[in-house]
């Protein structure tokens, strides 16, 4: 009965859109050269292809450079407070399963102050798409080490090096029972779009780590693996159903080793020894092992979908319970509720 109050979007078929429809009139205020620009462009170009309505799309963010994202997408959007975007998006997505809810944030926002909300949103499998822009630094507060900065990182707040072991975001997500985990980077628009599309299509929580360059405070953090001239040897494409193989001549691969996986030379072990990628393996151990191949961006790093499994989405289960109670009890009757404890009449 009450649902009729809530708009279901415009009438008829989804009207076709162009990139311009998804752009706002707001001046984009990231530093010139920031990796965020290419991520924004990738998404604005992708949205028309997804065939979705702008009014049914919501971007929710926390605080940080990445969190300015909603202002630049001509959809509904909320630029909230530091770390809380996954929690706010959870409420919105549960209340409104008809919406496409995207969450955008940086490594500090989502892995430090908001780490708790991130892992619980993944665990519950809330139907939201989470894009974590990882630049391994605090940008908006001008250059302190972040939870993904490498140990020993020299910054304003760690003049002789940080003491802490960083998070590996993909490992965190897999450990948090995420049903969709992927990694991409800001120098490859087509790869980003492919991954964002997969994230959009996945039912439940999708987690995408985007290696993103902060050219002001952490310039070149990923270029040892993402620049065009090194990419072939340093990025490991994860292709569903295919042996995991990389290198300019396909000379390298990934094989099981000692309970985990390791990079091998194909000539040494043979093609048949290579691990065949299966993102849908129910057991997350192999995906986790893949995430451990590179603990920092100075060695070959898998890119693509680490894990994509179908498991129940929280909102559907929650709404099924509402329906179940409604079915078993019949029409909601406030008078009956007020008279449900013993009553007496004077």
């Amino acid at each position: 009965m009450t649902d009729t109050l809530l708009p279901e979007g415009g009438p008829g078929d989804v009207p076709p859109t162009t990139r311009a429809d998804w752009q706002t009139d707001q001046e984009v205020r990231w530093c010139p050269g920031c990796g965020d620009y290419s991520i924004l462009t990738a998404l604005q170009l992708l949205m028309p292809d997804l065939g979705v309505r702008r009014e049914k799309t919501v971007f929710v963010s926390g605080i940080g450079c990445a969190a300015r994202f909603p202002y630049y997408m001509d959809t509904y959007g909320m630029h909230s407070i530091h770390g809380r975007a996954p929690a706010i998006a959870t409420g919105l997505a549960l209340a409104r399963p008809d919406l496409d809810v995207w969450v955008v944030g940086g490594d500090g926002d989502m892995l430090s102050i908001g780490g708790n909300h991130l892992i619980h949103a993944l665990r519950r499998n809330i139907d939201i798409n989470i894009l974590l822009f990882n630049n391994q630094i605090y940008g908006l507060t001008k250059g302190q080490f972040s939870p993904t900065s490498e140990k020993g990182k020299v910054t304003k707040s760690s003049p002789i090096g940080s003491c802490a072991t960083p998070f590996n975001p993909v490992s965190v997500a897999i450990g948090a029972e995420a049903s969709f985990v992927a990694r991409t980077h800001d120098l490859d628009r087509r790869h980003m779009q492919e991954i964002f599309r997969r994230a959009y299509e996945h039912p439940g929580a999708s987690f995408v780590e985007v290696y993103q360059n902060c050219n002001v405070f952490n310039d070149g953090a990923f270029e040892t693996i993402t620049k065009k001239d090194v990419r072939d040897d340093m990025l490991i494409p994860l292709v569903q159903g295919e042996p995991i193989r990389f290198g300019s001549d396909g000379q390298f691969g990934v094989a099981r080793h000692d309970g985990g996986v390791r990079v091998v030379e194909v000539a040494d072990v043979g093609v048949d020894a290579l691990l065949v990628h299966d993102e849908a393996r129910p057991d997350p151990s192999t995906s986790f092992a893949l995430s451990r191949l590179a603990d920092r961006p100075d060695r070959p790093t898998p890119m693509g979908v680490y894990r994509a499994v179908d498991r129940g989405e929280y909102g559907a289960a929650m709404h099924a319970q509402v329906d179940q109670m409604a079915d078993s009890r019949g029409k909601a009757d406030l008078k009956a509720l007020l008279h449900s404890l013993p009553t007496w009449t004077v």
Partner: protein
Amino acid sequence: MTETAAESLVPEVGGLVIRFAGDSGDGMQLAGDRFTSASALFGNDLSTLPEFPAEIRAPAGTLAGVSAFQVHISDHDIFTPGDAPHVLVAMNPAALRAELGTLIDGGTVIVNADAFVERNLAKAGYDHDPLEGDDLDAYRLVRVPMTSLTKEACKDLGVKTRDAERSKNFFALGLLSWMYSRPIEPTIEWIEAKFKGRDLIIAANKAAFNAGHAFGETAELSDHQVVVRPAEMPAGTYTNINGNTALAWGLVAAGQLSGLPVFLGSYPITPASDILHELSRHKEFDVATFQAEDEIAAVGSALGAAYGGHLGVTTTSGPGVALKAETIGLAVSLELPLVIVNIQRGGPSTGLPTKTEAADLLMAMYGRHGESPLPVIAARTPADCFDQAIEAARIAIEYRTPVMLLSDGYLANSSEPWLLPEVDDLEPIPVGFASGFNQVDEDGNGVFWPYLRDEKMVRPWAIPGTPDLMHRIGGLEKEDGSGNVSYDGANHAHMVAVRAERIARIPVPDAEVCGDADADLLVVGWGSTWGAITATVRRIRNGGRKVAHVHLTYLNPLPANLGEVLSDFSTILVPEMNLGQLVRMLRDEYLVDARPVSKVTGQPFTPAELQHVILGELGDDA
């Protein structure tokens, strides 16, 4: 309510306060609750005060593990659980030792004599048996071997001895039901319904209850027997309700009255969790409950749901409100409806989780960074929690603002008869979602400005899914009207003023003076002190002295006439379960010499305490 011949011979008393006390595992809350229910159905007015330790099972037999339930039953309208018990039921030595001091002189002590063995005496810190010495000379002692009589009553039922022993609270209840002429049927029916399918437990509890009742009849306790006749109450249908249940039902009602689905984001915390429990059971009213990972996510999810057009609610206690403060500030900035319920408890920090206090008023008013005003209202009785939950939702929806609703641990758990409202008489809560453009741009095209205000200074609520009205909101300062991010100082000053004014302008009912408008002394209260103040003012006026009472439901904004009302009295006393928080607000707002009457013992005021203070203030001469 038929009067039997036996009852007619029983002496009548106008009111009676009974305190059930025992070990946490003895089932005293249940016994008290059932006695209360039977009394409610009998037609008494009543008020209850459950008190229990923070530990689920403190070490058995110790003072720390004592759980108590006080009920005041009356043949006239009452407002509090009473000054002091007339009757104490002590199921073990620890209960006797912990609670005896609360009893009136000459009161009745009913003990489970079986529990007074050396081991239990030692655990309670007794170096002797108080039943044997002169400890209880000032009281009327009734020794009952409840454990053994319960076991005896259950012996042929095939119940394990340990299970039979557990039924001794029903023995106590049976005995009390006989002594105070309570109807038997409601309790028997309740046992049968509650333990349906567990026949042995039903049989044991009924046997214990009946044995307790029979014991009273046969053990020559008739000189203890009294009856409290039904009270004269306004006509209508009543139920016995506690504050948390009433509050939960009020939230359900607010959803129905507004036509909005209710979304509760909550994290378990004493003494607020029962609201989460209750709402979880009523999903058929389009109520979604989300048990979040923490207090921040609880309010965050509620705010997210509110952005999506639901009635967003979060329920918690003081420590939770502290954690939610930043998100509440965001809600102030976003100007979205949100209901925040604070069931206050003793603080600071973890404080006294199961004891009451009302020391979060200033946090409700000012506990956010920046200038971030929001409406604050407080419930005064358990049943009033229903009305104020609806009122909080109404203000939130109508004025697009977070609203803080204050209750406390006392209101949450204590109960009273509630004259049920006619559902059809409840006022609908109008909701108007924005559906079209509200502004024209330079080129003459229709556009949507999320911060363009109406005559009440309220911005439109345009929810996702609405075609054409796509817009971005956030915690950064916004330009009034367009809602675009603005760092302009003059705009910020304007927005700060707008946020203050739009809350200050919310109309609230005038303060009403109860009692003697021409008195010199005015008592000003808020929240759960209403009962104790009302009872006290009545007593003092019955004694021929003049006194007035104003009770505030609306703490922000305050009633428009309050300054004028205060100026009519030379003495203003403000009883509060804190060190004087409303006092500060009144002195600040009205430059009046209001003075605090404080109590922070974890228990509500009693009328006797307030009477003492007020009479002291009035002086002895008439």
